[in-house]
C-alpha cells in the first residue's frame, strides 16, 4: 500500500474557522456573564462545565490509549497519534481550572456552598454541620491540589508518553525496546488516573451538591468523559479521512472504535442506573434529594440524558454494519458527544443554581429536607399510615406496630436534620419519650427543640394525635401532588434557559470550547507524523481486519485483490 499524506497540515482555513468558533464562544460567555444573578452563576457554571468536560476528554483519551498500550493492543497504532494530540489539551485544562481555583480562593462565585466563609465554625451564622464535617476535604487548598495539581501530574505523564512515541519515529529500525519503556509509563498512568480522577471529579463537580454524595459518581462521570473522548475520536477520524489523511485507517478501525463506543455506552448506562437505583432503593433523604431535584424540576435533562447516551447508541450501534458505515458512525458520535456534554450539564447546573440561590437567600439547610423520589413512599410514612386506623385499640400487635413505625421514623429523622426531626417527632405519637432519647443521642444541637415538639405531640389524646397524623398525611400528599404548583412559585427551580435546558449561549460556549480543543489538537497533530513509523505494531494495525464485510464493502472489494 502506498502511504501518502502522513504529515498533517493545519491549513489557514481551518484555523480561521476554529478562531471564529472560539470568538463565538467568548461572546457567549460574556453574554451569560451579564444579565445574570449577582454571583454570575450562569457564567461560572458554564465555564466550569465546559472546562471539566473538555479537559476530561483529553486525559481520558490518554488513559484509554494507555490501557491499549498496557494490553499490547496493536490495532490502534495507526490512530494513536490522534489520542496523543488530544492528551496535549491537558495544559489548556490546567489554565482553565486555574481560573476556577482563583475564583474559589477569591470567592468570585457561589457554585460551591462549602466555600462560604465560616461554614465550619460552630456558632457562625453560615455554619453548616454537614459541610463542617467535610471541611477537611472540601476546602480551597484541596480544591487546588485536586484540580490543577493533579492535572499537572497527568500532563507530565502525557508529555512523557507522547515524547517517547515521537522519539521512536527517529530510530532506524522497529524495535520493542521503546514499546517496553512506553508500556511502563502507560501502565503506571492507569492507577494514577483511575484513583486521582475521582478526587478531581469530587472536587470540581460533585462538591457543587455539597451535602450530597454518591460512591458511584466518580466512575460514572469518568466514563462520561471517556465516551466524549471516543466519540470525538470517531468524528476526527472521519474528518481527517475526508481531508485525505489516514487513508490506511479502514472501516475495521472504525468498527473497533464503534464497538468501544457501543460497549462503554452500555457501561455508562449501567453506572447511571446503579447510582440511581441504589439511592432510590435505600430511600435516604440526604441521598434522594439529588434525584428528586432533577426528576421533578429538570425532567428534560434527566430523561434526555438517557435518550442521548443510552437509547441512541444502543439501538443504532447494536448492529454489525452500522459500526462500519461512516455516515451512521458520524451521526451516533455527534449524538454521544453532545449527550455527554449534556450529562455534565445535568450534573452541574441544578446544583449550582440551588447553591447560588441559597447563598443569596440564606436558607440552605431547610431546602435539603428529607424528600422521597416520586413514586416511592418513605418507609416511616407508610408505617404510620398503616397504624392510623388502629390507634384506639390496646392490642399487642398494634403496639409493636406503632413502635416499629416510631423507630423507623426515628432513624429517618436522625438522618435528616432538624426539619425532618420535627416531622418525624410528630409521627411518634405512641412512643414519643423513646424517640426523644434516640434523637438526643444522635443530634445534640437539635435536641431541645425536638424534646419540646415531641412532648407536645405525646400529650394530646389518641383522637387528637390520630387526627394530626391524618392532617399531616394529607399535607404530604398535597405536597407530592402539587409539585407543579410549587415549582411555578419557586424562583430557584422555575423553567429558566441555561439551567432547565441549555440555551443558545450554552451551545455557543460549547462550540467555543470545542474550537479551542480542536485548535490545540490540530496544532499538536501537526508536530508529528500521522504514522508512527517505527512502532513495532504498525504492520499489525495496517492490516487490521475484523468482522464480516457489509454488503457495500463486498462490492467495493470484489474488484481488486487484498494487499
Amino acid at each position, binding site marked *: 500500500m502506498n502511504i501518502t499524506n502522513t504529515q498533517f497540515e493545519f491549513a489557514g482555513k481551518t484555523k480561521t474557522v476554529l478562531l471564529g468558533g472560539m470568538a463565538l464562544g467568548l461572546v457567549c460567555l460574556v453574554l451569560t456573564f451579564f444579565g445574570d444573578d449577582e454571583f454570575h452563576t450562569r457564567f461560572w457554571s458554564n465555564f466550569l462545565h465546559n472546562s471539566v468536560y473538555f479537559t476530561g476528554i483529553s486525559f481520558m483519551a490518554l488513559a484509554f490509549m494507555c490501557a491499549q498500550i498496557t494490553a499490547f493492543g496493536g490495532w490502534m497504532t495507526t490512530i494513536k497519534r490522534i489520542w496523543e494530540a488530544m492528551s496535549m489539551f491537558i495544559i489548556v485544562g490546567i489554565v482553565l481550572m486555574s481560573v476556577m481555583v482563583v475564583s474559589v480562593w477569591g470567592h468570585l462565585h457561589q457554585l460551591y456552598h462549602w466555600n462560604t466563609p465560616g461554614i465550619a465554625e460552630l456558632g457562625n451564622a453560615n455554619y453548616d454541620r454537614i459541610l463542617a464535617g467535610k471541611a477537611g476535604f472540601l476546602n480551597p487548598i484541596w480544591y487546588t491540589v485536586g484540580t490543577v495539581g493533579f492535572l499537572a501530574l497527568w500532563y507530565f505523564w502525557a508529555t512523557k508518553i507522547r515524547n517517547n512515541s515521537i522519539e521512536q519515529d527517529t530510530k532506524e529500525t522497529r524495535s520493542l525496546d521503546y514499546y517496553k519503556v512506553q508500556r511502563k509509563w502507560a501502565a503506571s498512568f492507569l492507577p494514577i488516573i483511575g484513583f486521582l480522577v475521582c478526587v478531581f471529579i469530587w472536587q470540581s463537580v460533585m462538591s457543587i451538591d455539597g451535602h450530597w454524595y454518591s460512591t458511584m459518581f466518580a466512575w460514572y462521570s469518568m466514563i462520561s468523559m471517556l465516551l466524549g473522548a471516543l466519540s470525538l475520536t470517531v468524528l476526527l477520524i472521519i474528518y481527517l479521512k475526508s481531508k485525505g489523511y489516514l487513508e490506511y485507517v479502514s472501516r475495521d478501525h472504525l468498527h473497533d472504535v464503534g464497538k468501544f463506543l457501543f460497549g462503554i455506552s452500555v457501561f455508562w448506562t449501567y453506572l447511571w*442506573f446503579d447510582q*440511581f*437505583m441504589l439511592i*432510590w*432503593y435505600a*430511600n435516604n433523604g440526604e441521598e434522594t434529594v439529588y434525584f428528586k431535584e432533577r426528576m421533578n424540576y429538570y425532567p428534560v435533562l434527566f430523561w434526555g440524558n438517557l435518550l442521548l447516551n443510552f437509547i441512541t447508541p444502543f439501538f443504532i450501534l*447494536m448492529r*454489525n*454494519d452500522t459500526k462500519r458505515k461512516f455516515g451512521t458512525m458520524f451521526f451516533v458520535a455527534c449524538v454521544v458527544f453532545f449527550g455527554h456534554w449534556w450529562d455534565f450539564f445535568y450534573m452541574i447546573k441544578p446544583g449550582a443554581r440551588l447553591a447560588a440561590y441559597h447563598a443569596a437567600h440564606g436558607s440552605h439547610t431547610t431546602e435539603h429536607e428529607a424528600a422521597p423520589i416520586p*413514586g*416511592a*413512599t*418513605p*418507609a*416511616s*410514612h*407508610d*408505617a404510620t399510615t398503616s397504624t392510623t386506623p388502629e390507634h384506639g385499640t390496646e392490642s399487642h400487635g398494634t403496639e409493636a406496630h406503632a413502635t416499629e413505625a416510631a423507630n423507623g421514623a426515628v432513624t429517618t429523622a436522625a438522618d435528616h436534620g432538624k426539619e425532618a426531626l420535627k416531622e418525624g417527632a410528630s409521627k411518634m405519637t405512641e412512643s414519643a419519650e423513646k424517640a426523644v432519647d434516640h434523637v438526643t443521642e444522635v443530634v445534640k444541637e437539635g435536641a431541645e427543640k425536638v424534646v419540646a415538639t415531641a412532648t407536645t405531640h405525646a400529650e394530646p389524646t389518641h383522637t387528637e394525635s390520630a387526627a394530626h397524623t391524618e392532617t399531616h398525611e394529607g399535607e404530604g400528599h398535597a405536597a407530592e401532588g402539587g409539585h407543579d404548583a410549587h415549582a411555578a412559585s419557586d424562583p430557584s427551580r422555575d423553567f429558566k434557559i441555561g439551567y432547565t435546558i441549555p440555551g443558545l449561549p450554552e451551545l455557543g460556549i460549547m462550540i467555543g470550547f470545542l474550537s479551542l480543543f480542536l485548535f490545540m489538537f490540530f496544532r499538536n497533530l501537526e508536530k508529528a507524523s500521522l504514522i508512527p513509523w517505527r512502532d513495532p505494531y504498525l504492520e499489525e494495525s495496517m*492490516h*487490521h*481486519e*475484523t*468482522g*464480516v*464485510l*457489509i454488503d457495500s*464493502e*463486498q462490492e467495493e*472489494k470484489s474488484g481488486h*485483490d*487484498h494487499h
Partner: protein
Amino acid sequence: MASDTTKVLYGLYNDEEDLKKAVKTANSSHLDIMDVFTPFPVHGLDPILGLKESRLHQLGFIYGAIGASFGFGLMSWVFTRDWPIVFGGKPYWSVPAFIPITFEMTVLFAAWGMTITFYTICGLWPGVKAKSLDNRITDNKFCVAYDITNADESLVEKLRSFFSKTGADEVNVKTI
C-alpha cells in the same frame, strides 16, 4: 450425496497467513472449498471465503427481546397480582427494582437461545459422533478441506498440486 459419509481431501497449513494465501489462490483458480478449519478465529478470513454475515445475532435480538418482556412481565405479575409485598415502603409496581431481573432475563434468553440455535444448525446434540478430520485443527494446524466423494481423478490431482504449490504441510484423505 447419496451416502452419509463424505470423502475429504484436506491440506494442513502451519500459519494463518499461509492459509489466507491458499484460500485466495483457490478462489482465483476456481477450486470451490468445502470448508476451512482453524484453531482460532482468523481475522479477515470470512470475506475471502465469501461468507455472508451470520443472521444468528438477529435471532439473538429476538430472544433477548422475549427475555426482556418475560422478565419484566414476570416481575410485574408477581408483585402486583400473585404475591404483592411492600418492600421498604415502595409501591407494588416499582419499575427500577425490576430492571436488574429484566436485564438478567434478557441475557439468559439471548445466550441460551443463541446457543441452542447454533447447536441445532450445526447438528450438534448430545450423543452425536464427532466428525473430526484431524485433531490438530483445534490445536496448531490450519486446514483447507475439499469434498472429493464424487470427484474424478483429474480434479483430485489438480487439488493435490494446489496444496503443494500453496505450501501445505500435509495432505491427507479421510472419509468421515
